[in-house]
């Protein structure tokens, strides 16, 4: 059986000059040949620093940005070949939840209007059925039916994010793209939304691509983890092995950089040589080598491929020295 979402060599480019004499001359590769799949009912966590291309990848999946290369298959259909009514139908299979619930809900629409809109468009519900379904969706995210006539500003951040989840569920998607859904929320509120997402996973067997820079959140929720660095996936595998025995030096640096809420664990900064933005843009070889504590001359010449650690393993890493123990 083919996976629900299948990305093959997905590449997205942006023109670095939108206008002026250099328009179209230079292009920046935000996503560089990403292959990744999400099966039915599976939660895949996508982690990486700001600017690594994780949000752009999610936007490419729903065709919010055009592809420069590669293919996206959703439920066996090639998204690139679809247009018009067929594309609209395919899009109801996948829904997005955004980081900022203050920005993703229209302040002039009541919660009812926000949730009813996809029901009208995609499921053609009207009248009583529409009211009933809206109320049911509100309850499924733990909000009372009667709140449906209120406006977004009358809700807290956590409640707004739940409304965004309810709206995403309205079209009965099979895949949710959650782009940093809890990053702007306070700890106690974050817990509510994480519990809701975890509950949906168990109850509705939803598949999810969960994007976050917070590894503890990703670990809590995901079956599988993909680590992205400068537009590429550098490590991928089941959550447990990736967290317990990370093979890529970048994953290890990311793990050691997370502040752990445990004062008995001494704090040590990750062994990185510079920070992401002050490092130059590398166009050949390993893109991480200028920050990598393990880089050798070979890293500048060979472009490491994402390969399985062992022939039978699903744990893959893109590093020439992936089998070596960290220094």
């Amino acid at each position: 059986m083919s996976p629900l979402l299948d990305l093959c060599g997905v590449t997205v480019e942006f023109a670095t000059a939108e206008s002026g004499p250099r328009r179209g001359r230079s292009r920046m590769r935000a996503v560089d040949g990403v292959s990744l799949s999400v099966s039915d009912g599976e939660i895949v966590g996508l982690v990486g620093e700001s600017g690594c291309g994780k949000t752009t990848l999610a936007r490419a999946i729903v065709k919010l940005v055009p592809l420069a290369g590669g293919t996206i298959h959703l439920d066996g259909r090639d998204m690139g070949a679809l247009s018009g009514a067929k594309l609209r139908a395919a899009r109801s299979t996948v829904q997005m939840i955004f980081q900022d619930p203050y920005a993703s809900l229209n302040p002039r629409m009541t919660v009812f209007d926000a949730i009813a809109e996809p029901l009208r468009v995609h499921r053609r519900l009207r009248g009583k059925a529409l009211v009933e379904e809206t109320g049911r969706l509100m309850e499924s995210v733990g909000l009372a039916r009667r709140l449906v006539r209120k406006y977004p500003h009358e809700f807290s951040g956590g409640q707004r994010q739940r409304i965004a989840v309810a709206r995403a569920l309205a079209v009965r998607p099979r895949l949710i793209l959650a782009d940093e859904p809890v990053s702007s929320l306070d700890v106690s509120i974050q817990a509510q939304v994480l519990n809701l997402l975890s509950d949906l996973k168990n109850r509705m067997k939803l598949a999810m691509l969960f994007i976050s820079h917070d590894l503890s959140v990703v670990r809590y929720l995901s079956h599988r983890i993909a680590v992205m660095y400068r537009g590429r996936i550098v490590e991928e595998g089941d959550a447990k092995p990736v967290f317990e025995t990370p093979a890529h030096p970048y994953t290890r640096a990311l793990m050691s950089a997370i502040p752990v809420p445990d004062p008995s664990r001494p704090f040590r900064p990750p062994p990185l040589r510079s920070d992401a933005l002050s490092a130059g843009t590398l166009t050949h070889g390993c893109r991480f080598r200028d920050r990598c504590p393990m880089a050798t001359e070979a890293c500048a010449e060979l472009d490491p491929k994402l390969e399985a650690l062992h022939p039978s393993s699903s744990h893959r890493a893109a590093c020439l020295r992936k089998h070596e123990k960290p220094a």
Partner: protein
Amino acid sequence: MPILSAVNLRTHFHTRHGVVRAVDGVSLSVEQNEIVGIVGESGCGKTVLCQSIMGLIPVPPAHVSYDKMSLDGEPLHTADERAMRAIRGNHMTMIFQDPMTALNPYMRISDQIAEPLRIHRGTRRADALPKALDALKAVGIPQPESRIRQYPHEFSGGMRQRVCIAMALITEPKLLFADEPTTALDVTVQAQILALLKELQARYGVAIVFVTHDFGVVAGLCDRVMVMYAGKVVESAPTAALFARPEHPYTEALLRALPARAARGQGLRTIAGQPPDLARQIDGCAFAPRCEYATPECTSVEMKLSACGSGHTTACLRMQKGEIGELGNRGAE
């Protein structure tokens, strides 16, 4: 003698919707060489607390009052703008969450770092610039000789925050307020900035008040922690004690809501309800409506911070009645 001592600080904002008690009777004392963390959720008053001490809150609309406030033994009058100008940016400095807006985009890094020396010490530009270069070296910026001539937009977020730190420490202040200085940065950069702060703190002996909402950062950096809720301190303890034995129900609930402390697949404990509207009069404990241990008494009795262990205080009625804490469980020490 503490470097900073503030007793019963209140910052109230007079708004159309009533008086908002953003900081309501907080006492803060910071010793030399100490890093004190202030944690709490958005809107709990942690930033306003620091800005009130720095004299950065505009009065009016705010009303700032306190029983006593001193910096290194000298009384501090936050209302006296002339006096504050001589202290702020000199003996007491601050770094902010967003290093881009904290820097002047029109000024070279060199002049920005040298500015505090020129203003507070009257140092000539020619003498101040070498010191700025030393400061830039101390915060670990590569190629400082060429970077110092650049403008803020030529620096990454982490490097900008390093520039802010250099600027904040160049006058060798006694106290540094760090208001969520790593929240806008990536985790790997955050780790580097935290390591730098810790190193500089050890080298210069500056006391730091570190505001954050991240318990991970607190655990790695701070000697002592104060937990704030609705403008008040609800618990204060040495870091290890706070994580080992959180006594206030709010602290306990916050720690249980952290995904890093939960096992995978196990539900996270949430805190029901929302923080109170600070424009309304709150009787008794502000956390009582969300507290699982609350009794009817909690909304009528005035909460006081009372000792529940060595250097550990909490503002909970159960503590006052001796039901929890080392004193309650083991008898008086």
